[in-house]
C-alpha cells in the first residue's frame, strides 16, 4: 500500500504539490489523473525519494522509500523521463540494476522475455523506438518482482498494440494482488484501465473515488449515435425523455464528420441508454450506423473537476466554442 500524507513540494515560489493525502490500495489499478503540470510526476518522484518534500511524507508498506533495503524488490517504477544511457545495451542496463539488488543475472533474461525484448537485449538502447524504450522501462520496473508499481504515463507515444499490452499487463498485475499506481492525462485510457481514480489539479486533491463514481459524478452518460434519419430518431428519443443534439460540431472535428459519401448525422444523446436507443430504432426500423456509449463522459467529469486548476492554457476551449468552424 502507498500512503501519502500531507505531502507538499515547492520549486522556488511555485507550489507543485499542495498538502496532498491519499492511500493506494493493493489489488487494483489506481489511475492518477490530472492535467499537464498538475503535479503527478512530482508526487511520484516524492514517493520514490528522488525529490525531497517540503512537508508531509510518503510511505510504501509503512516505510519511506529510502528505508527499503532492496527497493526494487518492493517497488517498481517507470518514470516518464528517460533514465537509460543510449550507449548501453538493454541487458547491461538491467544487469547493473539487478546487481544493486543482489538479484541473479538470470532474472534480467526473465524480464527481457516478459516484455518481449529478448532479441534486442544486446543492442544499444539509443536505437530503440519509443515503444521498445517503454518496454525496457517496464522490464526495469518488474526486475525485482515488486508488489508495488508506479507507472508515469506508460502509454505515452505507444502504438495501439503497445497500449493494449501495457493495459493488460497492469490489470494482470493488479489481479495478482499488487498495488498499481498509473498516472495519465488521458481520461479515456484511465476509464478502461483504472478501477480507482485519484484526480489532482494544481497539486491539490480533487477526487479520490472509484472510476465509475467519478464518471457518475460528471455530466452523466451520453451516447453517440449516427443515423441517416436523425429527425425521426430525435423525436423518439425526446418522447422517451432524453435529449438528442446534432453533433456535427461534437467531439471536435474529425469525430463529428460523417464518413465520405455518408449522409448520416451524428447525434449526442443523453438521458437514454445505448440499449434503449437501439430498441427504439429497431422498433421503428431506423438504420443506425453507430451506437457508442461515450467514454468521453469521464473526460467531461475530469474537465469539470479540474476546471480552474489548469496549469497552462484555458478551459474555455470546449467543443461548443468550435461550432463556428
Amino acid at each position, binding site marked *: 500500500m502507498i500512503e501519502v500524507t500531507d505531502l507538499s513540494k515547492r520549486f522556488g515560489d511555485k507550489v507543485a504539490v499542495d498538502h496532498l493525502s491519499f492511500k493506494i490500495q493493493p489489488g487494483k489499478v489506481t489511475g492518477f489523473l490530472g492535467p499537464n503540470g498538475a503535479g503527478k510526476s512530482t508526487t511520484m518522484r516524492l514517493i520514490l525519494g528522488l525529490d525531497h518534500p517540503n512537508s508531509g511524507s510518503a510511505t510504501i508498506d509503512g516505510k519511506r522509500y529510502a528505508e527499503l533495503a532492496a527497493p526494487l524488490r518492493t517497488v517498481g517504477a517507470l518514470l516518464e523521463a528517460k533514465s537509460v544511457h543510449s550507449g548501453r545495451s538493454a541487458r547491461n542496463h538491467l544487469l547493473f*540494476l539487478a546487481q544493486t539488488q*543482489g538479484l541473479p543475472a538470470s532474472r534480467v533474461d526473465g*524480464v527481457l522475455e516478459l516484455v518481449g525484448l529478448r532479441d534486442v537485449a544486446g543492442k544499444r538502447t539509443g536505437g530503440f523506438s519509443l515503444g521498445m524504450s517503454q518496454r525496457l522501462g517496464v522490464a526495469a520496473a518488474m526486475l525485482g518482482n515488486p508488489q508495488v508499481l508506479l507507472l508515469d504515463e506508460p502509454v505515452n507515444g505507444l502504438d495501439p498494440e503497445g497500449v493494449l499490452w501495457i493495459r493488460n499487463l497492469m490489470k494482470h498485475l493488479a489481479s*495478482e494482488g499488487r498495488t498499481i499506481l498509473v498516472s495519465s492525462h488521458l481520461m479515456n485510457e484511465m476509464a478502461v484501465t483504472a478501477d480507482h481514480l485519484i484526480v489532482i489539479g494544481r497539486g491539490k486533491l480533487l477526487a479520490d473515488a472509484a472510476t465509475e463514481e467519478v464518471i457518475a459524478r460528471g455530466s452523466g452518460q451520453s451516447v453517440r449515435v449516427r443515423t441517416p434519419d436523425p429527425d425521426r430518431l430525435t423525436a423518439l428519443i425526446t418522447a422517451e425523455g432524453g435529449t438528442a443534439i446534432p453533433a456535427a460540431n461534437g467531439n471536435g472535428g474529425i469525430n463529428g464528420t460523417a464518413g465520405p459519401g455518408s449522409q448520416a448525422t451524428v447525434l449526442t444523446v443523453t438521458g437514454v441508454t445505448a440499449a434503449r436507443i437501439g430498441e427504439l430504432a429497431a422498433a421503428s426500423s431506423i438504420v443506425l450506423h453507430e451506437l457508442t456509449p461515450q467514454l468521453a463522459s469521464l473526460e467531461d467529469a475530469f474537465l469539470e473537476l479540474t476546471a480552474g486548476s489548469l496549469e497552462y492554457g484555458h478551459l474555455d476551449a470546449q467543443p461548443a466554442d468550435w461550432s463556428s468552424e
Partner: protein
Amino acid sequence: MTSAPTASYSPAGTQPDLPPSRPGFGHLMLAEWTKIRSVRSTAWTLFLFVVITIGLTALFSWISAANWTGPHAADRDTTILADPVGFIFGAGIGLGQLTICVLGVLVITTEYSTGVIRASLLAVPRRFPMLAAKVAVFGLLMVVLAEIVAFGSFFVGSKILHSHVPVSLSGTGVLRATVGAGLYLTVLGLLALAVGALIRHTAGAISTTIGVVLILPILTGLLPDNSFYNHLNAYLPQQAGSLVYAVHQNSGQLLSAWEGFGVLCVWTAVLLAAATYLLNRRDA
C-alpha cells in the same frame, strides 16, 4: 531490428522465485563496474590515456635524445639532467592526465545527462553508498591502469634516454616517483569525479577540472614572488600532487613529495565530501 517486438506476454514471468538476499556494498561495486565497462566512452578515454601518456613520453624522450647536443642543450641541462625521472613522467602525464580528468567527470555526469541517475537512485536510494561504490570502483580501475601506464612510461622513457642519462628503478626516489605517478593520476581522476558530482554537467565539469589542473597553476605562477603567493601556488592540487612523481627537490620547495601528494588527497577528500553533502540534499 526496426519493427516493434511482438507483444509476447507471459503472466508466468511475473511470478519468479527470487532468492532472498540483502545487497551489500560488494553488490553496489559490482553494479558500478557494470556501468563503467558497458559504455564505450570508458574504453575510448582509457585507450587515449594509455596511448597519449606512453606515446608522448616516448616522443619527448626521443626528441631530447636525438637533439642531445643541439642548440637547446642548456634547457636540457636544467630539465632532463636535473631530474630525468621527473622529465620522463612530466612529458606524458602533462597531456595524459587530461584524459583521466575527462573520464573522471564522465563517470558521474553522463548519469545526469542521460537520466540514468534516476534509475541508479531508485535502485540505491541511500545516495552515499552509491557514490562511495562509484568512487571505489573507478579508483580501483584507475590505480591498476595508471600504475601500468606509469611503469610503462618509465621503462620506455628510461630506455630511450639510457645512453645519455642512465636511470633505474633502484635509484634513490625512482621507485617512489614511478608508483607516485600512478597514484597521482588515480587521485586526480577521483578529484575530477568529485567536480563532476558537484557540477553535474559534462562540459562545465570538464572545463572546471581542466581549469584547475592546467590553467590555475599558470595564473598563480604569474603572481609576484612573495611568501603568500608561493604558498598559494604550492598548495594547488595539481602543483602539490605532481611533486610525488619528481625525484629532484627544487631549492625553496615548500612541500616534500608525499606531503604534496597528501595535499592533493585532502583537496579530493574535501570535494568528495561536498559532493556527498549536495547529492543528499539535492533533488535528483
